[in-house]
């Protein structure tokens, strides 16, 4: 590693046994049970409760959020080594040596996820009341959203990999159902199927990793796997690490399984905000950070994580720079930002904390950006083409304000959220390797470019609206969550650094390591900020005047590639689809010719032989008599030969 500095401080993760869940922590299961109950009620009662469906949806998640906040306050009152709780609900699988409980683990890492999921989830639920107001299936929509929240909470609260897998599949199912919510649109149905199939590739990785863990450690609980990780062989740990990375790549839309995320924007915008920006797509980062005991012991797998993160970070940013569809541009940005987190998670103990930190701030500001985009679409007849927006800031001032807060947060202008979290990651990257660090700075510059392009094309310049567009601000039920998330975008980073002390908070779970750096932190921050401002300046310079309504055709190769999502469909087609297709065709041919040929040939042979044999049945009594006599003579001869010596 080029830029490795000397280790200044090092804290190992605490592997203390979990405390028994007492007091308020007896109700960990309620966090999951409430949204699950909401989902069951909403999805099984048909047209009953149709007018009140959204109230049930919001209330269940909201109560979970309040419960989560109470637990956080209770947890903050305790000492650092007394903050992890375990609760066993019931024995799930008990077969020979395989023993798995449905058991929950609430520690500092799960806690921040619970808060992110429930609080952002509640805001997005409230927003959806307005956004889906005219949809006849709004109740079903809320049922699916609740199902998602329950599955996601199960994912982060599970105390073993198998239960985590249940949540993992649950969020995949909810994602599928919600991307394809408007299933009468062919594009939405296809996008849902694509997301499901590509996620399946990653899920295979997770299931193989779990099997490998059981074979190696004899258990799949976090505590025993991490406690015994040191005893496993290097190659086993590397394989587990790589398989978990495959799982994370599928769920978090990382290279090479990133193709589904852009198409997933076919779903309703609150879905894009909740699932495909704030929570589900970050499950991969959670998985890697949670499995830190494994990645700390295998340099190869950890390096692979960094490489995947860097590649996705760059290509996501490039894709985001070329899309005219506001949601797809944001989706490219999500890929890129998750790339940052994955990169940080791959850096080891110097990065885990900052991966989660960026995950939290990103969860808030990206949800804000998506909901603002949804609000813009709501006022523009559901149009998504930024070339038909422009000059919208006067028409929707609250949306513009919220979007601006998210914009300043994502490009990392101090003191907005992204500044704290992203600079920490870039800092950690430089501690590990200069190349990774420079890539991080570069991606930050591109982020500045595409976000500025987005905000200029949407809110500034001349109006390029379609003739029947009458932009208007959204109802308060949508703007209030936007205002809250706008403030969240601005201040989450600061709050987590100065008030929450996120580093100290997470260290018992992830460990922490600080290294000496050749260049001072301030210089690094200035460098990053300067690069971002260059990106912003370039975008303003290009888009300050007119934006053509038709996308220009004379563009660079990079833009062409980015418009086609870096040819990911074509690559998948060559790598996976066509080989499968040809194999299937060969197998059909083999089945028709070889297998059926053999079976049919056998039948034809039997038929032919019997057709000839039946000629023996002449119908003449004399023939039968002759055969009988011959038979008797034969038997007698045989008997005679045997009996007579």
């Amino acid at each position, binding site marked *: 590693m080029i830029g490795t500095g000397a280790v200044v401080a090092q804290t190992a993760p605490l592997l203390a046994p979990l405390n028994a869940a007492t007091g308020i922590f007896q109700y960990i299961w309620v966090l999951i049970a409430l949204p699950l109950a909401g989902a069951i009620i909403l999805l099984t009662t048909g047209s009953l409760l149709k007018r009140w469906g959204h109230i049930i949806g919001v209330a269940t998640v909201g109560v979970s959020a309040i419960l989560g906040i109470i637990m956080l306050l209770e947890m903050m009152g305790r000492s650092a080594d007394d903050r992890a709780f375990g609760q066993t609900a019931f024995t799930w699988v008990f077969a020979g040596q395989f023993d798995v409980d449905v058991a929950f683990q609430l520690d500092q890492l799960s806690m921040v996820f619970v808060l992110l999921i429930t609080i952002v989830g509640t805001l997005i639920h409230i927003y959806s009341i307005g956004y889906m107001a005219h949809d006849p299936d709004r109740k079903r929509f809320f049922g699916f959203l609740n199902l998602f929240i329950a599955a996601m909470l199960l994912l982060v609260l599970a105390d073993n990999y198998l239960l985590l897998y249940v949540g993992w599949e649950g969020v995949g199912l909810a994602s599928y159902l919600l991307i394809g919510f408007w299933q009468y649109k062919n594009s939405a149905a296809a996008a849902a199927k694509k997301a499901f199939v590509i996620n399946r590739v990653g899920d295979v990785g997770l299931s193989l990793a779990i099997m490998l863990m059981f074979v190696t450690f004899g258990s799949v609980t976090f505590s025993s796997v991490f406690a015994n990780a040191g005893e496993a062989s290097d190659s086993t740990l590397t394989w587990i690490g790589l398989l978990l990375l495959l799982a994370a790549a599928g769920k978090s839309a990382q290279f090479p399984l990133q193709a589904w995320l852009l198409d997933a924007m076919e779903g309703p915008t609150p879905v894009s905000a909740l699932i495909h920006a704030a929570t589900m797509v970050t499950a991969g980062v959670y998985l890697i950070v949670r499995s830190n005991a494994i990645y700390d012991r295998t340099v190869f797998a950890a390096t692979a994580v960094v490489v995947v993160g860097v590649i996705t970070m760059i290509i996501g940013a490039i894709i985001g720079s070329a899309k005219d569809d506001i949601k797809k541009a944001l989706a490219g940005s999500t890929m890129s930002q998750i790339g940052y987190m994955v990169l940080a998670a791959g850096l080891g103990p110097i990065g885990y904390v900052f991966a989660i930190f960026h995950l939290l701030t990103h969860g808030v500001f990206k949800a804000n950006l998506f909901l603002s985009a949804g609000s813009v679409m709501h006022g523009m007849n559901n149009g998504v083409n930024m070339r038909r927006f422009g000059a919208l800031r006067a028409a929707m001032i609250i949306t513009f304000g919220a979007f601006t807060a998210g914009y300043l947060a994502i490009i990392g202008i101090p003191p907005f959220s992204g500044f704290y979290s992203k600079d920490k990651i870039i800092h950690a990257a430089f501690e590990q390797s200069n190349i990774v660090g420079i890539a991080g700075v570069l991606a930050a510059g591109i982020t500045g470019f595409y976000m500025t392009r987005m905000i200029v094309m949407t809110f500034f310049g001349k109006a390029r609206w379609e003739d029947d567009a009458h932009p208007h601000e959204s109802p308060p039920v949508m703007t209030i969550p936007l205002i809250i998330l706008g403030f969240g975008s601005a201040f989450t980073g600061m709050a987590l650094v100065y008030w929450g002390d996120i580093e100290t908070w997470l260290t018992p779970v992830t460990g922490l390591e600080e290294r000496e750096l050749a260049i001072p932190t301030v210089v690094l921050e200035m460098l990053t900020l300067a690069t971002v401002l260059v990106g912003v300046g370039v975008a303003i310079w290009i888009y300050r005047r007119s934006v053509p309504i038709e996308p220009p055709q004379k563009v660079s190769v990079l833009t062409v590639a980015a418009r086609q999502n870096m040819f990911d469909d074509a690559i998948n087609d060559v790598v996976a689809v066509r080989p499968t297709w040809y194999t299937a065709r060969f197998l059909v041919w083999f089945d028709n010719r070889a297998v059926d040929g053999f079976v049919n040939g056998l039948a034809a042979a039997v038929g032919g032989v019997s057709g000839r044999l*039946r*000629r023996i*049945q*002449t*119908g*003449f*009594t*004399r023939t039968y*008599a*002759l055969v009988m*006599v011959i038979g008797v003579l034969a038997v007698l001869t045989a008997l005679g030969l045997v009996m007579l010596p």
Partner: protein
Amino acid sequence: MNPENYIILSGLLFTIGALGVMIRRNAIVVFMSIELMLNAANLAFVSFARINGTLDGQVVAFFVMIVAAAEVVVGLAIIVTIFRTRRSASIDEPNLLKY
């Protein structure tokens, strides 16, 4: 007289009967040939009973006669029915029961 001569006679009668079954076409004659074979067998039974000095063979001969009587009833009835429907007692004519 030597009982073995009866055995030889029985064999001759059986052979004549078997040949009659295979060669003749008239159903009645074929039927008679079958009766000839049955009686040849009876003669053999009785002769062996005499040779061995036991009654077993004679008892079996009675059973054969009874079965043969019953068989004649059925067999002749079939032949009469075939003759009525096909106007012929040839054994080669009713050859429908074939491939």
